[in-house]
């Protein structure tokens, strides 16, 4: 399973290296969202600073939709889905590989957004450790849930519009918990933040476990 996961994530990273879609499209989109939020709230800089955690994770969420959609369009184009089913790759390995690939892309986006909120919003990092582990756990949860719903939507005709409808309600807990953890991290109130981090870790664990077992039937049926 791990061999197959490494093979799939390696292929996805190579695809990104060749196509530069995350670099040239998803990252600029994420920064654009941040800038537009700044334009909307600029008259009151205090509100902008207070809303930084929520705006950061909203930008991540929108970017995640693009990254997930891209990741699964690749797998349903020109017979690749059939090729995957015939490949002998372990479906659980495919799931882990796809989720890991999406997670790497999202972490890169989050890094850029982190620099963005520091520059544009004047955000001050109080508890860097909490912020980093929050990013890791939230990204794992988004990538796992995204991979599950991504493969489900990829086989459907209306996938472009269906994925946000399916995924956004499911990942609402990630948005809430990551925002709360970031708020605690920015305020240096880490104790409260670690509880939210725990919720994110559980979410990631649950969706990774579901994905390992459910990816095969989802790939078969969708």
């Amino acid at each position, binding site marked *: 399973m791990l061999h197959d996961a490494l093979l799939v994530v390696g292929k996805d990273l190579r*695809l990104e290296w*060749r196509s530069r879609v995350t670099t040239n499209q998803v990252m600029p989109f994420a920064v654009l969202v941040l800038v537009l939020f700044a334009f909307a709230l600029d008259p009151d800089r205090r509100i902008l600073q207070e809303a930084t955690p929520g705006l950061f994770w909203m930008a991540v969420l929108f970017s995640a939709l693009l990254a997930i959609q891209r990741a699964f369009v690749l797998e349903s184009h*020109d017979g690749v889905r059939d*090729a995957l*089913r*015939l490949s002998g790759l372990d479906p659980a390995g495919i799931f882990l590989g796809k989720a890991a690939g999406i997670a790497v892309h999202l972490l890169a986006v989050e890094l850029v957004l982190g620099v963005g909120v520091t520059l544009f919003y004047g955000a001050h990092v109080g508890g860097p450790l909490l912020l980093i582990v929050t990013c890791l756990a939230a990204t794992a949860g988004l990538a796992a849930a995204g991979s599950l719903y991504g493969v489900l939507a990829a086989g459907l005709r209306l996938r472009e519009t269906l994925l946000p409808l399916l995924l956004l309600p499911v990942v609402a807990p990630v948005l809430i918990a990551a925002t709360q953890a970031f708020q605690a991290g920015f305020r240096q109130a880490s104790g409260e933040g670690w509880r939210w981090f725990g919720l994110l870790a559980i979410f990631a664990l649950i969706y990774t476990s579901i994905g390992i077992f459910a990816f095969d039937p989802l790939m078969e049926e969708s």
Partner: protein
Amino acid sequence: MEPVVHFRGAVSLLGRFPALAGVDLDVAPGEIVLLQGPNGAGKTTLLRVCAGLVAVVAGSARVLGVDLVADRRPVRPRVGLLGHDSGLYDDLTVADNVRFWARAGKTAAGDAHAAMVRLGLDGRLADVPVARLSAGQRRRASLAVMVARRPELWLLDEPHAALDQEGRDLIDGLMRDAVAAGATVLFASHEQDRATAIAHRVVAVTGGTVDAKLPAVEAATPGVTASGTPRPPAPAPDAASEHRRQGGEVAGVA
């Protein structure tokens, strides 16, 4: 010897439409069997059922000893399917694609290179993204993946489509080499003359069933039987000469 493909009354649905409506078919090891029939007859579905991609909902179906009704997944890594789609990643190069699918199939690293050499993709084309290839070159790249994976059963849907004369000769040679190396080939083609020349046996598919009568084909193609029952495969006398003509190893057929 157990047939590679053994169907009895096999029924498959595409949605609610019975794309296969009770197919009886046997294919013996080492045979090259041509499926012939009009568009929509069920040839593609039959190939996809053999690959374990489409479920059999009634009757019995065994491929390479795997009961497709009970669980069709185990047969998938053992077959190679060349369909209408390429099954390749557009943004990856030809070499990236062939290596990835070969590694996914747990074949040796050298097999991917040997397959690209066999298909004439080892030079300049190896580093070209698939999106920039012509239809014929894509077809060759898909074939390279198949050759590298060394399937036991080759399932080819219109394999000559989009290929030039040299490519068509090459695929005929690949089929002969595959059989010489112990594989079995089941293919659908509208290229009547070329396909019947290479096939050991022709099976007519009409309206989702295998037509066992097939008088026209049998009459037109001496030595070809029309029934769905197995017959010992004809030897592949030109496999060795094809091998020599290619001037290299027989790459990746098992």
